[in-house]
């Protein structure tokens, strides 16, 4: 199966672009091609997506749909093969060159907390400030303030090893917030947590997003989580990765868990589930043909 036949077999993706001037983050015609063991995979193809200032946007999709790749492109960690990303009017990638100033506005939270085990909680939170040469007193003050925001007051001196998974993820969020980013990129940040902790973290994340006024791009494979948190849910579909649909969720934030009992919530979850199932069937047919 060559890359060409793959490209011909799919229906093109939906455009998630916003009218001119509305997008804080503007993704235009972004594709990403990976070559592994001589085989080419089209991880993302022709993605058009605009994200508004202070919007909470979730990228939803099964594993392998390219949602993490898209987030890594936004974070400046992966270079797109084609297309361009503009953040607050600045182009992030120019060929091989990354505009580091465009990144200064962004905070990143990964699936793993990725805390440095040799630093205490406060030093982990203050690391981005340390790299920006903020003096120690200010760093500690900010770390203290953020520990409070993420509910970790009293744990400033603890080492990451002494914390639970949920607490570590809170530290990671605090670290990403330390330099007051305008954009928060989160890659399945609560994926490794148990359901109870996850619900709790989702509630707190809404509160944090509101307090800080940050634009949030949140990657998840949980439909309920995506709908619960988002102003817009962008469903990605795999092989090749493209936008399958864009769903507006217009309930006000912060949403309580009761929101999940409302019909508006449930209809959207069901519709997204239907689309995902349809995709799964198409993929298994495709798999049967190529085998």
């Amino acid at each position, binding site marked *: 199966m060559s890359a060409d036949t793959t490209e011909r077999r799919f229906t093109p993706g939906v455009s998630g672009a916003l009218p001119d001037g509305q997008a804080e983050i503007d993704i235009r015609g972004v594709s990403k091609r990976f070559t592994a063991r001589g085989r080419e995979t089209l991880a993302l193809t022709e993605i058009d997506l605009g994200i508004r200032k202070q919007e909470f946007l979730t990228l939803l999709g099964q594993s392998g749909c390219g949602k993490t790749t898209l987030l890594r492109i936004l*974070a*400046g*960690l992966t270079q797109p093969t084609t297309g361009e990303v503009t953040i607050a009017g600045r182009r992030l990638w120019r060929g091989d060159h990354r505009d*580091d100033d465009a*990144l*200064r506005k*962004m905070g*990143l939270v*990964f699936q*793993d907390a*990725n805390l*440095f*085990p*040799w*630093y205490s909680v406060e030093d982990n939170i203050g*690391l*981005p400030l*340390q*790299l920006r040469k903020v003096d120690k007193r200010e760093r500690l003050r900010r770390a203290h303030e953020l520990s409070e925001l993420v509910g970790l007051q009293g744990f400033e001196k603890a*080492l990451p*090893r*002494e914390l639970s998974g949920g607490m570590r993820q809170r530290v990671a969020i605090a670290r990403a917030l330390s330099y007051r980013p305008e954009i928060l990129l989160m890659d399945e940040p609560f994926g490794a947590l148990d359901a109870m902790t996850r619900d709790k973290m989702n509630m707190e994340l809404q509160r944090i997003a509101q307090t800080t006024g940050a634009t949030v791009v949140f990657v998840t494979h949980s439909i309920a989580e995506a709908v619960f948190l988002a102003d817009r849910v962008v469903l990605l579909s795999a092989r090749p990765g493209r936008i399958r649909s864009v769903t507006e969720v217009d309930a006000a934030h912060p949403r309580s868990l009761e929101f999940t009992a409302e019909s508006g919530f449930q209809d959207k979850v069901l519709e997204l589930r239907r689309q995902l199932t349809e995709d799964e069937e198409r993929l298994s047919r495709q798999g049967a043909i190529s085998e």
Partner: protein
Amino acid sequence: MSNRYIPWISTAVAVVVMIVIWKLVIAIFNVSPFVLPQPEDVITGVKDLVNSKGFWTDVRVTLTETLVGFAIALALGLGLGIILGRVVWLEQAMRPVIVASQVVPKVALIPLFIIWFGFGMTSKIIIVALLSFFPILLNVILGVRSVDAGHRDVMRSLNSTRWQTFRRLEYPSTLPYVLAGMEVGIVFAVVGAVVGEYLGGDQGLGYRIVTSLNNLEAETLFAVILVLTLFGFLLYLAVVALKRFLIPWHDSTIDSTRAST
């Protein structure tokens, strides 16, 4: 009872058990004191050894050989390890050489070094360096390669400079591996110094082994072994102390009782 007392109690028990078996063996098999002296004679032997002429010179000689050789091994192991850890093709090219020089029984090369560099300290320093070099090198290569990809992403997304990435990420995450290499290396260093002196020396604690053997002084031989054990133990302890000081955050330095909470 807390777990932290267990090693101390077990050590005391082991020493007592050993002395009892020791005495029993002498009593039951009627062993000649030329073969196995009484424990109390060995204690006297240690006292005599420590007070004997030139003892502290011998300690100094062995210590100098061990430390200088170990320092050379550490410098070379770190330098080469960092280069080979980063430049994958070079490490692949060097691998046959490294494996070959590792499997050579290095102790067998000692006579050769003595022929080349004489009976003095130089030949022993080279032996010490050679023996402790490999564990350090291999650990440093492993350490340099083990920097977590997720941690690298964190630094990259924060626009860190080359120096910041080294100072905040690569240095602390490689340090436990360097220290693990040093822990093995220091033990090998003592072995190298003693065997070097033993096979071709005219001073040092290893040379004392040969002289007491030639004079059939079993209690002196035992005394030298005890002193050497203490000598190696103190050096090992120094590395462990360094580890506790440099990487208190690492799992290897934490009591099992605390780490599990």
